[in-house]
Each structure stands twice: as structure tokens, then as C-alpha cells.
């Protein structure tokens, strides 16, 4: 048959800062120093937070969680361009973005330590709760964007999900709904190469995931997810398009899961260290720090101070968390319905009586 199949090609990856922190000057957005310093601090805080959480988990203070190591630039880049009126829909690995959006460190610690008061987004933050069920948050995120159209609001939604999530039917439906409704949504598919033990090659027959968006008629690009400048620019542009009524964009952020899938995971069972090693050199923080130093924005000493400050901030938050966090078993009936129906009122009474009998606060 001589008809040519559609060429899947592999699209170039948008990059501003390369591995060696060389800048593609034609693309450098030349952000102001204040902004650059803030971005840097965001990256470092994310890492401090993540590492502290790992320690706390190993000490039994935390439940299972998914470390973020190496994905900090993806994380920050996808929310830096957002305003408070824009919405953000995180995955379970989106600590960096959540911190930037205004989730306090204590809240996130509470969340991952299983206290229900940690789950809802902070009162003034237009975020969805993170989603544990892979891909299940993407349709609601598109729905919010459709609501913006309904109300003619010039805002947008960024939704974050992984390479694994790209296989979920609900995500495909979300891409289609966004496309046909010209919904102001930016899909950030954080392709870190792995879904637990499953490499991209078993997840998809394509060598990139941007074609997935294209298959639904969504302008789609690949971005170096370890380059905070490229990520920020790409999301900024996509958000601008969305707000201007030009519809969704699909961004494949190419990065790598440096650490465990979650603290319940042992990657040595299924992946060779050789696959990880090359990515060490691509560290998004080191790369950005070279750029900052080279451009005279921050000195080595200043950078070191940022690291210290972030560590201290995290430890202070941990201490507050330790002082604060109390299980509140009496509250579990509080938010199931607007008003508790009689059968649940009865169940609640029985439950509270039981707590009383057992002497639980």
C-alpha cells in the first residue's frame, strides 16, 4: 500500500539552558534578577522539603510518599507563570508546584502523614486536591477551564500528570474535551521515564508523548523539564494562549525520576543504575545555579545561604508540624454532605459513642 502513514516524527525539545548551563541566547527570556532569585529559592526549598520528608518517612513520621528529586524545575516552571486567579491541579508528586502556589510546608506534611486537615487546598489557593488515582484529576481540571469559558473569565488551568497517566482513557477524554471546547487549559505531562517499574517503552509505542496531544488536535511541544527557563517560558506562552481564548496546549516535560517511585518502592529491582547516572549531570538546580552565577545574579556564598535558609525553613515547619498535628477522628462525618441525613446522623452517634467508650478524644 503506498499511502504514507502519518509521520510521528520526533519533535525537538525546547531548551534554553543546556546540561552545561550554556544559554541559547536567542531564547533567553532574560527574567529580572528578583524573579530569578525567587525561582531559585523555589527549587531549593522543594528539594529541602523533599529530602526532609524522606528522612521523616524513614523515621516513621510520614506515610508512603513519592519523592520529587530531579523534577524540581518541571514543578516550578509549570506554576510560575500562573496568577492567583488561575487554577492548578497537582499530581501526588507536585510538591514544588504546591509550595510555590501557597501550600504551607506543614500542610503538606500533615497531608502525607495522614491528617485530613492537610488534604484540602489552602483556603485562598485555587488548586484542586492532588490526585492519587492516576489521571482522575485531569477531567475536573478541564471542567474548571470550561467553567472559565462559561463565565468568560480570562484565566487558565494547569494540570500536571505523568507519563504513566497518559495511558488512562480518562486522560484521553480530557484532551478531547479540552480541544473541542477550546478550554483554557495547559496539560503538563511530566515524562520522568517511569511509572513505578514501567519504562516509557512499555507505556507507549511512541518515542515521545507530545504526539498524544497532537492526535487530539492540541498544539503540543516537548520541553526540557530540567531547564527551569524553558519550562517557565513554555507554560507562560501556553497560559497566554489559553487566556486569550486560543485553547489548550499539551506540554511534554522531559525529565527523569531520580529517586524511588515512592518510599514503598525499590527501584534496584527493576532498573539499572546506568540509566540513572547520565541524569545526575542534568540536575535542574545545579544547572540553574551555574546560570545565576555566570550572569552575576547570585554568588556561590549567596547560593549556599539559600540552601541553608531553606533547610532551616523546612526544619522549622517540621517542628510546627510535630507540635500541631493531631488526629481528629471526631471530624470524619463533618464533610460528607451539606447536611447529615438521619441514617448518617445515627451512624455518627454510634461512632462517637464508641469513641467515648474507648476514651478517644
Amino acid at each position, binding site marked *: 500500500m503506498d499511502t504514507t502513514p502519518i509521520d510521528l516524527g520526533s519533535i525537538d525539545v525546547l531548551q534554553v539552558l543546556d546540561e552545561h548551563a550554556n544559554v541559547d541566547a536567542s531564547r533567553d527570556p532574560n527574567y529580572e534578577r528578583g524573579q530569578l532569585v525567587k525561582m531559585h529559592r523555589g527549587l531549593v526549598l522543594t528539594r529541602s522539603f523533599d529530602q526532609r520528608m524522606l528522612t521523616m518517612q524513614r523515621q516513621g513520621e510520614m506515610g508512603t510518599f513519592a519523592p520529587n528529586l530531579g523534577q524540581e524545575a518541571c514543578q516550578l516552571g509549570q506554576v510560575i507563570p500562573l496568577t492567583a486567579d488561575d487554577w492548578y491541579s497537582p499530581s501526588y508528586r507536585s510538591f514544588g508546584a504546591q509550595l510555590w502556589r501557597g501550600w504551607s510546608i506543614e500542610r503538606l506534611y500533615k497531608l502525607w502523614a495522614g491528617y485530613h486537615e492537610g488534604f484540602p487546598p489552602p483556603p485562598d489557593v485555587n488548586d484542586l486536591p492532588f490526585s492519587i488515582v492516576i489521571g*482522575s484529576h485531569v477531567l*475536573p481540571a*478541564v471542567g474548571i477551564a*470550561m*467553567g472559565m469559558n462559561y463565565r468568560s473569565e480570562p484565566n487558565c488551568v494547569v494540570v500536571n500528570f505523568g507519563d504513566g497517566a497518559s495511558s488512562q482513557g480518562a486522560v484521553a*477524554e480530557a484532551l478531547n474535551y479540552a480541544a473541542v471546547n477550546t478550554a483554557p487549559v495547559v496539560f503538563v505531562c511530566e515524562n520522568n521515564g517511569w511509572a513505578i517499574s514501567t519504562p516509557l517503552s512499555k507505556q507507549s509505542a511512541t518515542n515521545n508523548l507530545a504526539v498524544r496531544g497532537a492526535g487530539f488536535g492540541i498544539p503540543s511541544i516537548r520541553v526540557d523539564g530540567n531547564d527551569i527557563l524553558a519550562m517557565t517560558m513554555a507554560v507562560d506562552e501556553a497560559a497566554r494562549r489559553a487566556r486569550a481564548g486560543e485553547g489548550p496546549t499539551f506540554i511534554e516535560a522531559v525529565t527523569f525520576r531520580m529517586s524511588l517511585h515512592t518510599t514503598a518502592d525499590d527501584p534496584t529491582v527493576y532498573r539499572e543504575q546506568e540509566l540513572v547516572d547520565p541524569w545526575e549531570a542534568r540536575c535542574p538546580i545545579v544547572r540553574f545555579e551555574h546560570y545565576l552565577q555566570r550572569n552575576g545574579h547570585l554568588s556561590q556564598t549567596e547560593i549556599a545561604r539559600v540552601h541553608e535558609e531553606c533547610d532551616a525553613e523546612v526544619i522549622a515547619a517540621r517542628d510546627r508540624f510535630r507540635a500541631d498535628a493531631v488526629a481528629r477522628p471526631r471530624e470524619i462525618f*463533618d*464533610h460528607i454532605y451539606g447536611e447529615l441525613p438521619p*441514617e448518617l446522623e445515627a451512624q455518627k452517634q454510634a461512632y462517637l459513642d464508641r469513641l467515648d467508650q474507648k476514651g478517644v478524644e
Partner: protein
Amino acid sequence: MPQRTMVEALNHSLDESMGRDDSVCIMGEDVGINGGVFRVTKGLHEKYGDRRVMDTPLAECGIIGTAVGMAIHGLKPVTEIQFSGFSMQAFDQIEQNMARMRNRTQGRFPISMVMRAPFGGGIRAVEHHSESREAYWAHTPGLKVVIPSGPRNARALLNASIEDPDPVIFYEPKAVYRAFREDVPDEYETLPLGKANIVRPGSDLTVISYGAMMRVCNEAVDDLVDIHGVDVELIDLLSISPMDTATLAESVSRTGRCVIVHEGHQSCGIAAEIIARLNEHAFEYLCAPIRRVTCPDLPFPYFQTEKHFLPDADDVIAAVQETLAWE
């Protein structure tokens, strides 16, 4: 008062609800210019336009999932699933987001939305078009489940469901859609969710049912009263979840005997839950085992046999008589 079929009454409810509140919008397959395959949304697209009456792609998970997002953003989507059998395609979004979002966010994002779907048998349809799986939803915390039985209560309950701050599964008995007309007032009217209706008070035995089976029960009760001289109390549940346990328990405490009638499968169905509650709240008054008249635990059959599969008035009468005869 205008006489309306259930379809017309539902259409009226949607129209008046949209008229009252700009945040009410309609989403579903073919709900726009086509007015829905049963014409429940007829004329609304013409009146309210593309913005408020949205034809969606053919993807139920997408309908519910995006509606959840719209509800988070403060809208009140009234979604239509073309036949309730296709709500299985949206099970994940219903269970994981629609039902739970309020609880997941400690009250921050209540989901005020409705999922309408025609359900039940009796219209000679092919497979997957006649399911009665309301028990799935009644077993799902966070949802409300409402099932009207006639034009007037359909309209008042749909209004209430749209007003409700929580997600409501609104199952419409399609066998009743055009079966009869009823007075349905023009003035806005609601019925409280969670309240059963004692259609006929009686003292010998309580029959509990809902949806299209109310017609079957009415027929049976007429015969039982007129021909057999049995003073049956007939209750229309209307709300499956929350369930009006107090009314049911009070009734059966008086009559001591009970028959429950529904189309859904027997095992883990709604009748089982009613029995469990009556066991808890009216045990000492029970004079006979509570009987279930339901469809068997089989997929809904091909339509040449559906009339045998569905409970009919004779089945109800037989169950009532056996229950009365029990000692």
C-alpha cells in the same frame, strides 16, 4: 393545572431551573438541538444557547469528570447520561470525584450537580438499555439517589435535586416517560429529598416500591383492596439515598408485614437494605418474613422475554398473599 407527561414535566423543571439560575447548565450527548433522545431537553438549546446547553463528545466519563470541574468552579451542571447502563463508563469519576470531592476537600469544594439518566426496562430495547443499578449508587457514600414515579413528583424532585448542594443521581423510569399525564402546576414546586410518600395508608401490610414499579404496585394494590379486601399501605420511596427509614419503620411497626418491589437485581439490592433497616428498627413488630419481589440476579434479558423478567402485579399480589398467610 396543565397536564404533563413525565418527559414534559422534566423539561419544565430544567427550563424553570435554568431560568432561575444562570449557573444551571446542561451537558450530555445529543441534549442540544436534538433535545435528547427522549426529548427531555427539547427546546432548551434554542432558548438558552450553546453556552448553557452543551452537546458533549461521546464519552460519559468525560461528561461527569468535566461536570465535576464545572461544579468546583461554582456552576450547577445537570448532566444527562443517555441510558443509565452507560453510566458504568463514568463510574470512576462518579465514585472518585463526584461523590467524594466535598469530603476530600473537607467541605471546600461541594459538588452541586445532577446526573440524570433514564433507567429500567419495559421499552423493548436492546441489551444495556434497561438496567436498574441504583444499588451501586446507594452503596456509594457522598451521593444522593432520587427516583420519581410520576410527572409531578419527577418535576418537583428534579427541581430539588438541582437546588441541592450535593451530587444527586436522578434516575428516570423511562417506562413512565410518556405512560400517563398528570397535573403539574406551572408555579415552581419542590419536594424534599429523603422523604418517602405514603401513597395509600393501610393497616394489613406495607408495600414499598419506587420508580416504574409503582405503577405495578398501584395496580396490585387496587386489586388487593378491591377484590381481596386487604388493607395495604403503599409507600413510594422517591429517595433511595438518603432513605426515609423512619417512615418505613413506622409503617411496618403498624402493619407487621412488608413486601418490597423493585426492578434491580435481588442480591445486594435496595430491598436487602430496606430489610436490614426494618430488621434493626421494627424487628419486634414483624409477623412474617419480608418478601422481595425483584428481578433475578441476571443481566436484563433480550426484550422478547422482558415482560416475564420484570415483576408484574400478579407477582406482587402473590407475594402479599403469601406474606399475609405466613404464621
